[in-house]
């Protein structure tokens, strides 16, 4: 008899909100509660007496079978979780959704047999709640991380990527699912740098300095990342969060910078080219400028010559006087038949003619258009050849002293320019000394030390120093400061272009030398020119002939003192006096004349040139008259007009204009002495 009745336990089992399956000791389904009917969709009748394999043919039941056996045989309870057995049974919620469940298997000891209880717990809600809580908890964190422009990776202690944000997906080109589970070491190249970073993290390296790493994208391309990583722990498990900043742009910028540096270099090269052509243009301009300068120099010279004219005329008169006088004497001696000593006069005439010729030569040379031609030269020699010209140009009122250093070092420059400089400076000095004075020209060897060189803006070393100093009016500081400026002049209009000193400056600087002014108002001016020493030999050059001097012995009775700086003229005058039977005394300047006049020497007549250096003829005369009121005085001068205009002649004073004949002079002297 089959009697179907509901046992009381069944009612209880059906009331429980969990799945319950009871297996008999043959592991066949004995009970199957209402929950199971609902979740599996299979009625109790459908499953009773069947094994689980028969009911769930598609389910992997190996673990469950083992658990049921263990329960029946050993009384062991087993747990099969959704973590390791997701959706073990194909169960649905009442809403038809997948039903997450944990399965517990345990033994039910009974009489007569032990059964096995399979308890299925619905964890759908719990899992959903957990996930919901987690999601809400993570929402803010996720908002930050997911929207971060930087790659953010969470790695576990094995460097396995556990999380990758959307920026990582974008950066590496992998899907998030592809990144997660991958070893982060595979991303970075070379792995050694990454490994170093990792080791530091493992050691708990506090340094959080970011490291630049290269990573390879899914497509194989490389990307530069600045990685900063920090470790953190949860439940004593190590995690590392790595934040990787894309520095490709920065690197590109750096590369651009490097390439722009390259461009800058190219530009510099182009500039160098431009400079080269510029130099060429500058050269062309310089050439033109030099032409202009050349013309200017020429006009300067002409200006200098113009200023010289007066002095030169006087000079030529003197020289012509020497020649004429000598020829006169020769004529007389020949007429008198005294030809024994005419040779002296011939020599004198020749000397004068030579000097005139030299002077002419110098003038011509000076005024000639000559290209600038730097050559080794001896400044002493140059001054020697210029001496005549200089003396003429400064006039007789000024004394000129030349001090030449022995063994003077050679210099290398254009001789004509140096002459021009010397002449210009001499003229300036002359103009600075309207009341007379001394023009000193000196040469010396000098070694400029570093500070001296610095002051002169030249390199230290050996220099030839040429100084031209006067005892004139000097220059005020502001004038000194502008002295080398072109077109700056203190002279009245028409008397100078103001280019003299600037020309000198240009010439000296061109010759790697220096020019300096030292001046004090009322005390005079010194111009110093330093030119670098030239080590080598002079080029052969024709020496200018030197003028020779001649002395003359005295005569008898009356004594005549001849003061004349021009030695030829003095010679001639003395000779005439000797011929006339007078005793002639000579002085070549005012000072020596004064000494003679101060002495007790008998002097009947003073014949003096007016234009003498330092003490002029007039001053000598005045001094003579003070000591010897009766002394007769004869002025010899080429500046007739000036002397006449000065109107200083008193009793016992006569004037004779150069050039004069020896006869005229003899007559004049005889007349004066005999008066």
């Amino acid at each position, binding site marked *: 008899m089959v009697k179907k009745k509901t046992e009381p336990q069944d009612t209880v089992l059906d009331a429980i909100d969990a799945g319950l399956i009871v297996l008999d000791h043959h592991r066949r389904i004995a009970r199957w509660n209402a929950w199971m009917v609902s979740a599996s969709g299979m009625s109790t009748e459908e499953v009773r007496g069947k094994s689980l394999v028969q009911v769930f043919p598609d389910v992997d039941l190996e673990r469950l079978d083992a*658990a049921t056996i263990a329960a029946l045989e*050993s009384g*062991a309870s087993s*747990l099969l979780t959704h*973590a390791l057995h997701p959706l073990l049974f194909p169960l649905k919620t009442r809403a038809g959704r997948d039903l997450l469940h944990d399965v517990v298997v345990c033994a039910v*000891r009974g009489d007569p047999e032990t059964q096995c209880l399979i308890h299925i717990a619905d964890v759908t809600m719990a899992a959903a709640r957990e996930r919901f809580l987690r999601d809400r908890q993570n929402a803010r964190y996720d908002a930050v991380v997911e929207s971060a422009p930087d790659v953010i990776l*969470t790695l*576990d202690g094995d460097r396995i990527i*556990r999380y990758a944000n959307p920026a990582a997906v974008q950066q590496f080109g992998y899907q998030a699912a592809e990144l997660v589970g991958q070893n982060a070491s595979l991303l970075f190249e070379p792995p050694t740098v990454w490994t170093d970073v990792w080791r530091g993290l493992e050691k708990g390296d506090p340094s959080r300095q970011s490291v630049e790493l290269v990573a390879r994208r899914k497509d194989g391309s490389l990307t530069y990342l600045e990685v900063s990583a920090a470790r953190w722990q949860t439940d004593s*498990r190590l995690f590392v969060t790595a934040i990787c900043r894309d520095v490709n742009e920065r690197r590109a910028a750096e590369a651009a910078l490097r390439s722009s540096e390259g461009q800058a270099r190219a530009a510099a090269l182009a500039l160098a080219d431009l400079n080269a052509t510029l130099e060429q243009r500058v050269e062309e301009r310089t050439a033109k400028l030099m032409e202009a300068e050349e013309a200017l120099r020429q006009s300067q010279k002409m200006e200098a010559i113009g200023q010289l004219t007066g002095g030169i005329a006087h000079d030529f008169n003197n020289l012509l006087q020497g020649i004429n006088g000598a020829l006169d004497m020769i004529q007389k001696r020949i007429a008198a038949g005294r030809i024994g000593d005419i040779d002296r006069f011939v020599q004198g005439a020749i000397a004068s003619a030579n000097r005139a010729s030299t002077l002419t030569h110098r003038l011509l040379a000076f005024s000639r258009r000559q290209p600038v031609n730097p050559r080794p030269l001896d400044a002493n020699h140059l001054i020697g050849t210029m001496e005549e010209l200089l003396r003429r140009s400064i006039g007789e009122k000024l004394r000129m002293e030349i001090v030449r250093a022995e063994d003077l070092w050679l210099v290398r420059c254009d001789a004509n320019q140096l002459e021009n400089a010397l002449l210009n400076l001499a003229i300036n000095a002359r103009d600075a000394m309207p009341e007379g004075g001394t023009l000193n020209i000196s040469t010396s060897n000098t070694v400029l030390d570093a500070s001296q060189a610095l002051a002169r803006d030249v390199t230290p070393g050996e220099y030839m120093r040429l100084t031209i100093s006067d005892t004139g009016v000097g220059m005020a500081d502001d004038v000194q400061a502008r002295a080398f400026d072109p077109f700056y002049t203190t002279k009245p209009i028409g008397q100078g272009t103001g280019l003299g000193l600037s020309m000198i400056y240009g010439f000296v600087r061109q010759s790697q030398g220096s020019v300096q002014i030292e001046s004090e108002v009322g005390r005079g001016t010194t111009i110093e020119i330093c030119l670098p020493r030239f080590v080598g030999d002079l080029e052969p050059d024709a020496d200018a002939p030197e003028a020779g001097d001649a002395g003359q012995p005295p005569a008898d009775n009356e004594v005549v003192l001849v003061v004349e700086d021009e030695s030829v003229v003095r010679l001639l005058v003395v000779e005439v006096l000797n011929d006339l039977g007078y005793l002639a005394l000579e002085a070549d300047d005012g000072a020596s004349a004064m000494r003679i006049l101060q002495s007790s020497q008998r002097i009947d007549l003073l014949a003096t040139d007016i234009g003498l250096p330092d003490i002029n003829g007039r001053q000598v005369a005045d001094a003579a008259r003070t000591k010897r009121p009766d002394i007769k005085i004869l002025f010899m001068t080429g500046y007739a007009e000036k002397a006449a205009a000065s109107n200083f002649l008193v009793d016992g004073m006569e004037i004779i204009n150069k050039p004069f004949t020896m006869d005229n002079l003899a007559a004049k002297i005889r007349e004066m002495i005999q008066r």
Partner: protein
Amino acid sequence: MKKTPKSTPTVLSELELDALTELVNLGISQAALRLAKMVREEVILSVPNVTLVSHNEAIKILAERGSKSLVAVHQTFEGDITGRALLLFPEANSLELVRAVIGRDLSIEEIIELEQEALAETGNVILNGCLATIANLLHRHLKISLPEVLRGESAEFFNMKPPPESGDTVMFIYINFSVRQRNIEGYIAMLLDMPSFAALKALLGEFIHRTTGA
């Protein structure tokens, strides 16, 4: 190694200890088979030795391993022998174990989410394998509880209430767990009360008699 305190009257003979080691190894290898089927990967579980130590010694051994924080899967058993079984890992290794068992690449959140269940189930497989095999071989039926995951320091695990009656002896089993190129070290500790030890000793005697005929 400290000597077993005198207060512990029950000491297994060398032969009994060898038999126990063999039983445990059998049980563990059963568990390994189960796990291997579960994770579809080779799983090697080995038990090189079984020792009997006092609670303090067990705590000390665990401390020497360098980890104070432990994760334990705890099960109780009742029957002819009664006590607790603990599968112990350094806490840092537990995630390793979960990852090794789950195999799938999951996000850290997912792993953390599943960690508890996965640990419980894995521990359950290992402990059941061990306990059930022992029970079977000893022809005894034990009531073995469901697993419970515990976290804490080792001292806490050896002083759980209620304490085994006057029992201070721990069966301490070093276990080496290897899966998916991961190597995880742990311990199984069995805490028995005094009658259970006596019973175990008797049962081991029976087992030795049956297998060797001695």
